[in-house]
């Protein structure tokens, strides 16, 4: 009697593979949607078979077969899976399993695909603003600090600190209940700090430890600078006028090094500053103003002449 090879049960191997590599790490709690390919070397249609996914906690979910029957073989082999990263930081492993089964007249072996993802804490980031500029040495001043969870978590009540370059804490506060207007989830507060006793650029850092938040967050730190100056000794009044007509120019930006102000409707700005020599510049779009050197040893006034520069017509893009 001849052996009929066709009557022997044939076992096909099967494979599950990711269409694209899985990310090595993801924030806790995020959902990863991926496409996988389930196939057998003989090209059997496995699209009608369910898959079992065993999650990191041991829970098993079933991915039902795709309902659409009108698919090309390439398409039919693809499945979408959705994995939810647990809220614990650390390595998590999922296992996707195609159970052994018979289909298309052949036995198919079981196969599994492990997927390993490291869950990391949510990132946080910081902002510092409304820093007075400049600050007089030795004085106390306030600024605003804010923290944002990358996942938009509510951070109100958490502590935020400001330290100097050496790490010494200079001031702290607790984030307020509502996010800063215009932001989606930047929780903020005002912090009062002492200015150092010497002039210069003072570098500090705002630090957010991100402790005591239910869902794990990574702390963060961000540098910022504050210009520290000597106490003022005299007052400088700057008047900005249009050169030919003498019309006062409002809203011109006046700067002398670390000091600045904007002119009022009478074209005047006042700046209090210590004795010394300063480069005065004035800026307003549509005007050309000469810079001047100003020596301060008394209360003085200066006038700056601004020449109107006709706005460049954007079509006349000529340069000589």
């Amino acid at each position, binding site marked *: 009697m001849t052996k009929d090879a066709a009557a022997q049960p044939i076992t096909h191997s099967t494979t599950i593979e990711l269409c694209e590599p899985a990310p090595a790490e993801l924030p806790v709690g995020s959902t990863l949607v991926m496409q996988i390919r389930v196939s057998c070397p003989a090209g059997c249609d496995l699209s009608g078979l369910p898959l079992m996914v065993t999650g990191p906690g041991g829970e098993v979910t079933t991915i039902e077969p795709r309902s659409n029957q009108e698919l090309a073989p390439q398409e039919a082999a693809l499945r979408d899976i959705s994995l939810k990263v647990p809220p614990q930081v650390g390595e998590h492993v999922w296992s996707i399993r195609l159970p052994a089964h018979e289909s298309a007249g052949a036995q198919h072996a079981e196969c599994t695909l492990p997927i390993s993802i490291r869950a990391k804490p949510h990132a946080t*980031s*910081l*902002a*510092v*603003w*409304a*820093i007075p*500029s*400049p600050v007089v040495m030795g004085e106390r001043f306030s600024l605003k600090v*804010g923290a*944002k969870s*990358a996942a938009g978590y509510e951070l109100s009540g958490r502590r935020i600190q400001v330290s100097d370059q050496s790490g010494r804490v200079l001031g702290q506060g607790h984030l307020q209940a509502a*996010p*800063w207007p*215009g*932001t*989606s*989830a*930047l929780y903020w507060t005002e912090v009062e700090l002492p200015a150092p006793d010497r002039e210069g*650029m003072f570098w500090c850092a705002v630090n957010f430890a991100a402790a005591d938040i239910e869902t794990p967050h990574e702390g*963060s730190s*961000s*540098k*910022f*600078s*504050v*210009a520290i100056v000597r106490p003022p000794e005299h007052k400088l009044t700057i008047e900005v006028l249009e050169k030919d007509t003498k019309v006062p120019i409002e809203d011109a*930006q006046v*700067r*002398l*090094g*670390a*000091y*600045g102000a904007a002119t009022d409707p009478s074209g005047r700005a006042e700046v209090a500053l210590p004795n010394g020599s300063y*480069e005065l*510049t004035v*800026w307003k*779009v549509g005007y050309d103003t000469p810079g001047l050197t100003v020596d301060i040893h008394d209360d003085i006034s200066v006038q700056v002449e601004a020449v109107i520069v006709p706005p460049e*017509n*954007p*079509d*006349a*893009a*000529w*340069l*000589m």
Partner: protein
Amino acid sequence: MGKNANIRGPAKGAQSVSRRAFLSKGAAGAGAAALVSAGSREASAQIASAPVKWDLSADVVIIGAGVSGLAAAITARDSGASVISVEENFDIGGRGMLSGGRVHLGGGHALQQKAGIKDSADQVFKDWVRFDSAVARYSDRDLVRVFADENVATFDFLVENGVEFIEKPIGPEAASTVPRTFVTVEWQNQDEIYAPGGDRNGSGLVRRLEQSARRKGVQILLRHEMKSIVREQTFAGKIKGITVAHPGGTLAIEARKGVIIATGGHTGNVNFRRTFDPRLTEEYQQACLPYVFQGAKGELAAMELGASLWATANQTSESGAAITKTRHIGCRWGYSSLVFQPESKLFPLAKATGLTVSDWQNMIFVNQNGQRFWNEVDGSYRFFAAAMGYHGDTAKLNGGGPIWAIFDADAAAREKWDPKPPHVDPDGYFASADTIAELAPRIKNPHQTKPISGAVLQETVNRYNAFVAAGTDSDFKKPTPLYKIEKPPFYAAWATPILHDTLTGLRSNTNGEVIDIRGQVIPGLYCSGETQGGFAQHGLARCLVFGRVAGRNAAKGAA
């Protein structure tokens, strides 16, 4: 004049899409035609050495119904020729449709006289060959002489053909020593313009010329793209006609006397523009998209017959509007005077108006690495050089990559911006976030090949803020940097330099006949407008003048 007798009718199946029929549909679908031809199609000039079967025939065939092409068409008709114009776009006008309508013609025409301005053809010539003007000294002075001599006649031609002008003279501009710029009146029918609400008075020029052309019997075939120019032999003999592709198929159009190339420049063709400047890689957008694509198709078709380029120094003299600063940040095509408002038919393609910058103090610019590279207030070619400089991307050595404006809530308030759609395009040209560190990875665009590091961007902003606090920009000497970038939320907007003028093109003689690389006329081939090299004056005037010159000479059939 005015008779169509010499134009033989279209073969069965050929489609001639009338403007009215098109405009009654939305522009969104068909507008894609302008973009589709942008990347994928090559202007291959397949030279037929075997006789071509002609579907249509006319004395003069003009490729392009923009400013120069329309002027050529009318002039050829006025000279007694039958004319077929083919236009690849879904509507006429080219860049002129979106221009400000500033026509720089002088020589002592009627409006100048009315304003008491003394001018002459000789003065126009003298001004435009000035050695001390970089927009004049690299010109072919034979062409400048033609330009000068034709100024008054061209102005009169416009008025005769129904173009209306605002009588206020502007200037002197550029090399001119006398006011010569007059602005056309914008086209009154809002349904027939593409950039409403933006002083785009050029619509008044092109629509009037179109009206006159049609009235005079020019046949304008829209959505007909030239595929090749047919010559007796590749490098010898007369021009016979052109082949075109259109939505229904292809056509061969015989030109009994001449073909005029008025296809409008090369700025959108990356391969071609890099001939003059290898820095101009893909990330640099072409102004006037999504309406007009400047694909160098006319140049390429002529060069495949041996045509020469001419006066290429104009393209890289760094003195005109070849490269411009993006005035409207946060959108793809933020060219200085052109803004697409939501009412524009092209808005579904343009996608955003952009945020118009009043004061460059209100932002910093960072390159694709998240670092500042130059004084933001500078709008000169030194700024462009820095923007297009090599910033360390080992995978792409040429070009400078995307440039991003970074600013905060206070800057948006000072500029009176509303940094949300429809003012910005968040799909590749704008991002916002609560903090700088969060903003960096949100900056995404096909040309932003690696994300900007949050730490690097924070460092850039911190450093800049320290300069502001001290009153001096130690890195790039921005004049008195005024405003810190501090107050949340924070924004990043596309601010990559955008390309505009084509300032070089095909060589031609004073009749507008195209000259080949051996200095010989290609009989029956003419060029005008941005396709033509030799005179780099920015704007409409040279396109109008040389369009008329080409039209007149093609109608004579000088070859």
